[in-house]
């Protein structure tokens, strides 16, 4: 199952609007997506779960994708995070 670790470039990290944008993308993906920080892994499609990770700018998060088109989905999600998820990265 493909996974990759990225540092959050945007000011609010995985809070506020970026958390929503990220969870929405994960929800729309064909496979199951998880995100983890410091060893705690949660369902990336759940904005509530993503919020509980309390990820700030500069934090390293690991995205994992399972199922159909996992590699393509992972690429897309990593690109989304690196773009700042709607905020200036």
């Amino acid at each position: 199952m493909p996974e990759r670790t990225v540092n959050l470039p945007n000011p609010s990290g995985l809070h506020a609007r970026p958390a929503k944008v990220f969870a929405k993308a994960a929800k729309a993906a064909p496979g199951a997506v998880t995100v983890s920080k410091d060893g705690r892994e949660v369902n990336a499609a759940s904005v509530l779960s993503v919020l509980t990770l309390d990820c700030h700018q500069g934090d390293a998060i690991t995205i994992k994708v399972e199922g159909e088109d996992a590699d393509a989905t992972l690429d897309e999600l990593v690109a989304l995070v690196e773009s700042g998820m709607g905020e200036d990265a």
Partner: protein
Amino acid sequence: MTTTLTGRPAAPGAALALAFALADAPGADQPLPESRQGDVDTEVARLDAALATAGEQLTALAERVAESAGEEEAEIFEAHAEFAEDPELRDQAVEAIGGGLSAERAIVVAFGAFRELLAASASEYLAARAEDLDDVRDRVVALLQGRSVEVEAPTVRSVVLARELTPSRTASLPRELIAALVTETGSPTSHAAILARSLGIPAVVACEGVLAAVETAGDGVEVVVDGRSGEVVIAPDDHLRAEVADRIDAEAARREALGELRDEPGQTGDGHRVELAANLGDPGDLEAAIAAGAEGSGLVRTEFLFQDRTDEPSVDDQVGFYLEVLRAFPGQRVVFRTMDIGADKPLAFVARDPEENPALGLRGIRLHLARPELFRDQLRALVRAHRAAADEDAGRLAVMFPLVAVPSELLAARTLLAAAAEDEGVSLDGVEVGVMVEVPSAAVGARRFAEHVDFLSIGTNDLLQYLFAVDRLNGAVADLADVCDPVALGLIGRVIADGHAGGAWVGICGEAASDPVVAAALVGLGADELSMTRVAIPEVKDVLRSLELERCQRAVHIAMEEGADGREVRALLEEHLGLG
């Protein structure tokens, strides 16, 4: 049947509209069924229906708020909708139903688990989301119990009635549909009242029994609200309805006439100049303040830049905002009060110990000097904005320090300001520096400050609170802190005289200046500038232009001498000013 109730006037103006009773937060006090009655599938289907409806309602609410109040205020409800549709939340609730719980109890448990995780976080942002979760939870539970929750917003122009109104609840109401606000609790200085005044909506607070009276009268009842007298009439007769309709027309005509004063300067009838400036809370106020004819700002509350943030705003961010305000007032003075932050307004990015009595704690200039890093950045941003604005037709920078109690604090802050200017290579020529007089020791000792500053600005809200030992948010005692009390006016008069004797000009910032009668009294005491909520500027300008300086002086001195208390002083002021 017509019912007349009297509350406390909180924001002027008259209104006649349908009653709209805002229910208390739903779901708080009803016992929930503990265990599931039917099979798992039935219970899960109930849950899914409730979650889906909650999501739809919240999305619709977000759209309404976006239209009436703007995208930014709508975001909170968009987030609420996301919470209701969260897959993990649902999974946890479904699991709990499988374990035998009712859908109601299961969703409460699921929300509770997330709430605990968020509330435990050190981040203020996440802790605030924990409270959002409670809102969504209450809505889902109410839906499961078949109770109505669509109480957030009226769909036609209405008089909104509630037991109490938190600022966020008030802000979520569609402004153009609120004819007036009436609450059963609160005081004229509570947040909802201040917000109503700033929005120009008539309001009456502490109007006990109004919800019951409206309920008795039934659906579709009309209500008359008089924000000046505090009178609320339920089911008015035709005679009163016609009278109020006339009054509303007259008020609209008056507003139009006042609008024509916009570009006229603030002065008395005999040409004595008094600057009439606006108090500003956030950039959204700028345009409206200009439209109201504000002559600069006598109080920019910079702390809003720092609140509700998980990280510290950069110097550049601050410069951007300060410049925006300076540019809005070409040729006029803009007084930036350095951030007034205390333990009651904590910042997510500044760790500090809780205090038992934050109003008397490490706040304002005390915090600046104890933790100078944030303060240095703010001063640096202010002088940078000054440099950038110097080449433009912008406003003039003035810097004011909050909660100064002794002169050494002022001197230390001035030293830091000078150091920031030197670091940035900016000259402070033309930058006025002042002290906000709100601590009684600074008011009594004003003379000791005056020679070290360009101006003193009397912050009446806090000065009255500290002078009379009254929590101004506590309706049971708030009346004691009356600016018209002869002791309060006497102290303000002495601060003004002491300021002038030391070569400083003296302004007033605070709610007191927004009352035309009080404003005239303050001018009579010698105030050079009055800074107030923008909504009050046209009315105050009009009244001052109708009065001669000597009349203001005579009225205030007679009133202070003859009046035994605030009520008597006010009556005497009205009589001798020919107002009221």
